[in-house]
Structure formats: C-alpha cells, structure tokens
C-alpha cells in the first residue's frame, strides 16, 4: 500500500511501569506497583478530572492514558472530529476482562464489566475523551505488526477524509501489558519522520 505523505509526529510507549514520550523516558513509577496501581498513579500524574477513568478496564485505561500523554499538546485536537481516526491492535483482544467478567457470572454478573468485554471499547473511550469521530479499526494479531501499522494508516490518510490517525498496539493480560501508540499525520512537523515499518520498529524498541 502506498505511503505518500504520512508522518509519525508523536509516540508514547508504556511498559515496565515506565512511560516514554517521543522516544525519551518521561516518567518512571515504582517497579513494585501492580498494573492497576501504576495506572492510577499515571492518571494522577498526567490527567485527573476524568472520574470515568476509574470505571474502565485495564485495556481501556492503558490506551486512554497513552493517548492522554501523547495528545497533551498535539494540534490534532484542533482538526474536525471526523478527520481523526484510529487503528489499534493486540494479541489477547479483551480476554483479560472477559475472564474477570466470567468470574462475576456465578454470583451476580456485572454489567459494568461486561461492556468492556470487547477489544474496541478502548478506541471508544479515547474517542469519547477527545471527540474523535473518524474511522476506527481493531486488528487481533500475535505481535505488533509494524508493516500493517505503517501501510494501513498511510493508506487511510491517502484515500479517506482522515488527516490524522492514532495507531499502535495496546495489549494486556493480567500483569503483562504493553502500549505503543503513535500519532500519524498527513503533515510534517518538527519532530516528525516519514511513516515506515522500520521507523515504527525503532520507536517501539528504543534500545
């Protein structure tokens, strides 16, 4: 798929209780924190004032927090809402929450948990937060497919009305988690670099 004029204008990686913004370590939490504690600490550090965060499942919290960090000063929020889309992927879909929900069924099943038993709800939460109304897709694949994540968003910018697209990987299964969220735009910025699979790979594995 052609990749005419698509640029990576920002990245946010979350792993091992650390948050990296545009390749640099932005914040490191206590390594002893469990995932939910880490997420709460990250919310307090980078956001607050969004009580619905506490109701989200771990997958949504992870994606939401990465978007919060990545989009803090991004001009993309000034674009018309239907011009911003999203293409995310992961390995375990919503399995982490599926199992949590399943364990409530034998008592009284929880509607608040059930609504998160779909992989794409994380995209819904990010859209609700930032008002984005463009095209969304969620792929399930074994590993972070940098080829897919470079060619498909590039094509969306080329052939659809989208002018910007969040793309990447949001995975969680119990305490194992990893987020790699990228902002892709059809305009170059000072920090930006052309969108290629290799560029995504090098940002994904900064060391």
């Amino acid at each position, binding site marked *: 798929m052609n990749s005419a004029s698509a640029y990576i204008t920002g990245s946010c990686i979350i792993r091992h209780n650390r948050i990296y913004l545009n390749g640099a370590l932005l914040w490191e939490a206590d390594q002893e924190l469990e995932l939910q504690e880490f997420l709460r600490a990250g919310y307090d550090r980078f956001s607050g004032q969004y009580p619905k965060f506490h109701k989200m499942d771990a997958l949504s919290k992870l994606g939401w927090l990465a978007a919060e960090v990545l989009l803090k000063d991004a001009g993309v929020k000034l674009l018309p809402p239907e011009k911003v889309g999203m293409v995310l992927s992961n390995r375990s879909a919503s399995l982490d929450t599926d199992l949590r929900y399943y364990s409530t069924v034998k008592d*009284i099943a929880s*509607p608040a948990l059930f609504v998160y038993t779909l992989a794409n709800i994380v995209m819904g939460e990010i859209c609700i937060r930032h008002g984005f109304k463009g095209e969304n897709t969620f792929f399930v694949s074994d590993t972070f497919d940098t080829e897919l994540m470079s060619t498909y968003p590039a094509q969306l910018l080329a052939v659809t009305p989208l002018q910007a697209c969040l793309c990447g990987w949001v995975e969680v299964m119990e305490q194992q988690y990893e987020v790699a969220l990228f902002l892709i735009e059809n305009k170059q910025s000072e920090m930006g670099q052309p969108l290629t699979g290799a560029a995504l790979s090098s940002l994904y594995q900064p060391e």
Partner: protein
Amino acid sequence: MADLKAQIIEQLNLQEVAPESIGNDQSLFSKEGLGLDSIDALELIVLLQQHYNLRIANPEQGPQIFQSVRTMATYITANQTVQA
C-alpha cells in the same frame, strides 16, 4: 442513607467522590449532579439485588427509583421485607 452512599461509591467505583459530598436530594444522573449513565443505572440495580435482595426486572422503573439517594432509600424501605 450514609451506608447507601458508601455502597453506591463502591459499586460504581467513584474513586474521587466522598460519601458526605453526595447530597440526599442531589440528582444522580443529571450532569449537574453525579452525572451517572445507563451502565451505572444497571449497576445500581445490581447493588439493590446484592445488598437488599431487591430485584428490579423492568429497567424503566430505574429513573424513578434512582433520582436521588433519598428516592433510593425510600424504595428500599418500602419494598424490603423481613431481613433474613
């Protein structure tokens, strides 16, 4: 009603709300009130079942019962039979 407020906060995961900050007659669902949504309403139905053994089969009863902490308490008192 203080117990009920604590239960609501726990059930709905309202981590940044203190029980005493919820007024007895404050609207639970309006934006000016607690700003709860349709999923919260379903969780309140679960709460009534779990803590008070009250079943609401028809979700259309929800808005009336869940107007405020006071209307919830009134409903509980009126419908609760002998506690086992």
